[in-house]
């Protein structure tokens, strides 16, 4: 029965979405029908909102839904010139086709982003959230949240600058090992060997597993007593006493080295993606280059340095960029490893601290400002990066 009810609920929602899209499309259609009539522009700009407002006041309805209606009519004044000047009659179909997707993006991606900027100048926290929910009142506090981001700790002890440093370190180490590991594996797999497809399938397993399962299972394997990593270390130390003399042995991974643990897990997760991308690049290199190099008597390292690396760079650059952004934004691994009650904050990077500040510490406005700061960092780095990328392209 409950299952039927849940299906019903979701179908109802899908119906509402489709109906909403149909309404919006109908609205646009109506615009396309009339926007080039002479009376439409002044009517849309002035007439509709005034008529709507007058009608509402006449009926004495100035409650919440009516205000939204008025707001919609008012925005009509903006939409009408948009159609009049930008949309030519011939491409109306294109706009009709685009409308649903872009309305969805505007409501669920652009609006939240703008709302977050607005939020970062206000003061929303656990004590004021019920008031905000009921009345919509948000006290304006100017730049205070931004000052707080740099002067107080997002969590309980760690500072913003420590987090920033840790994030850069985390990103660098992870991407470095992803690329190095992926490159090695791809070179190994790119030989004419048996079972190639079979190996390749097995090697992508860490990437193919659901990340939540992979991280939680690995977290279990780093358990001090029952995880296989410590069991193996213990056995190694018992079998070879001189290794134990060097300090090898079971380690309290989760409590003493949380960041190392997260990094190891993330390296394990990330290598297959790089391997697959680089392998694709390697396979697209024509063997005639290597034949020519063989005739010239080039060594393996020379071939690697002067043929392979330059030729896979165009494939690598997008993958490395993507990997860097993914690693920088990786909340999943760190939160799943350290996010339980009593978890440590010594492994947190910027984004995971952001998540915890918002949902463990319930400091909403503070984390909004924190998010804007992180976004600004990422934005400037990527603009700088793209600029240098373009410059490198022009040099060639």
């Amino acid at each position, binding site marked *: 029965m409950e299952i039927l009810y849940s299906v019903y609920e979701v179908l109802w929602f899908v119906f509402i979405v489709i109906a909403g899209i149909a309404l919006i499309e109908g609205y646009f259609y109506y615009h396309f029908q009339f926007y080039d009539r002479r009376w439409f522009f002044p009517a849309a700009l002035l007439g509709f909102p005034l008529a709507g407002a007058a009608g509402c006041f006449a009926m004495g309805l100035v409650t919440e839904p009516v205000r939204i209606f008025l707001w919609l009519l008012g925005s009509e004044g903006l939409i009408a010139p948009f159609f009049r000047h930008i949309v030519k009659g011939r491409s109306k*179909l294109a706009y009709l086709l685009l409308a649903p997707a872009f309305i969805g993006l505007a409501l669920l991606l652009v609006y939240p982003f703008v709302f977050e900027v607005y939020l970062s100048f206000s003061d929303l926290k656990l004590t004021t959230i019920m008031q905000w929910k009921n009345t919509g009142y948000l006290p304006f506090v100017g730049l205070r949240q931004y000052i707080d981001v740099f002067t107080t700790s997002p969590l309980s002890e760690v500072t913003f600058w420590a987090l920033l440093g840790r994030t850069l370190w985390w990103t660098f180490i992870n991407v470095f090992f992803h690329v190095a590991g992926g490159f090695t594996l791809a070179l190994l797999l790119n030989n004419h060997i048996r079972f190639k497809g079979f190996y390749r399938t097995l090697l992508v397993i860490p990437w193919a597993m659901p990340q939540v399962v992979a991280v939680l299972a690995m977290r279990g394997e780093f358990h001090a007593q029952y995880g296989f990593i410590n069991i193996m270390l213990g056995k190694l130390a018992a079998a070879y006493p001189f290794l134990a003399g060097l300090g090898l042995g079971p380690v309290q991974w989760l409590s003493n080295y949380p960041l190392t643990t997260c990094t190891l897990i993330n390296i394990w997760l990330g290598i297959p993606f790089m391997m697959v991308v680089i392998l694709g690049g390697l396979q697209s290199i024509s063997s005639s280059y290597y034949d020519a190099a063989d005739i010239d008597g080039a060594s393996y390292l020379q071939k690697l340095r002067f043929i392979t690396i330059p030729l896979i760079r165009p494939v690598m650059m997008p993958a490395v960029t993507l990997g860097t952004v993914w690693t920088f934004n990786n909340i999943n691994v760190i939160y799943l490893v350290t996010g339980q009650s009593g978890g440590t904050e010594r492994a947190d990077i910027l984004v995971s601290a952001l998540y915890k500040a918002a949902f463990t510490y319930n400091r909403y406005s503070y984390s909004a400002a924190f998010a804007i700061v992180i976004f600004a960092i990422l934005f400037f780095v990527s603009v700088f990066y793209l600029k240098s990328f373009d410059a490198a392209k022009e040099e060639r």
Partner: protein
Amino acid sequence: MNKEAAAYRRKKFLKYLLIHAAIISFVVICVYPLLRILSVSIRPGDKLFSTDLALLPKGADFAAYVRLLKETLFLRWLWNSLLITVTTSFIGVSLASTAAYAFSRFKFGGKKGGLILLLSTQMIPAGMLILPLFLMIMKLGLMNTYLGIIIAYSVSSLPFSIWILKGYYDTIPRSLEEAALVDGTSQLGAFYRVILPLSTPALSIAFLFNFTTAWNEYLVARVVLFSSKQYTWTLGLFELQGQYITQWGMFAAGSMLVTIPVLAVFLYSSKWLISGLTLGSVKG
């Protein structure tokens, strides 16, 4: 001469032996944790905590699976995930398919701007939008409902899906549509009758991408859903794993049940997924 050939062959054999050895050691690193989950999931209850490394435990049974299905809401979690995921993928793909068609076939003002906007939405860190989405969902009174989580998920893979589908539509020759137009159908009819059936592969890849993203999502679900009846399987497994000492066997059993179908689908579709991943970035 013969000696030289033998030496050469031996050298070659050694080389391939080394390559195989290196690859196999990497394969072991990649596969061992998965096998370990499997092994934990079939351990008998009294041996759950052993420091034994054998992959096939003595007295293996499926008690953990039975307990998982009987004592927890695991099936309910799977059902919730399935419902949420299918709905979001359906919405995402249907929105993307029309938008991608507009980008692929029409010339209109703001086309380039729209494409750039799509790419730039990818620069917004996903973690950043969780907070405002959470507040919006709360304000709408949709906390702890399917609808709240569906709304939060529905556009997250939209830009990527549009890119994939646009790339695929671009490869379909225009003459097919023109033929349909000559036969008297409208532009929309041509899209519906010619382009959509032809692009089933790309549509299914976009659907799969939407599906896996939503299926494996954890962070948004964590803040929107809070009663264990509404949990998706990711939250459920996290809870089981949180109670580490008592539920490890059930956690492992649940992980296996979730992982096997995902692995199968991924391995089947990985070729296309990867080409799609690099497609957008190379063209951008």
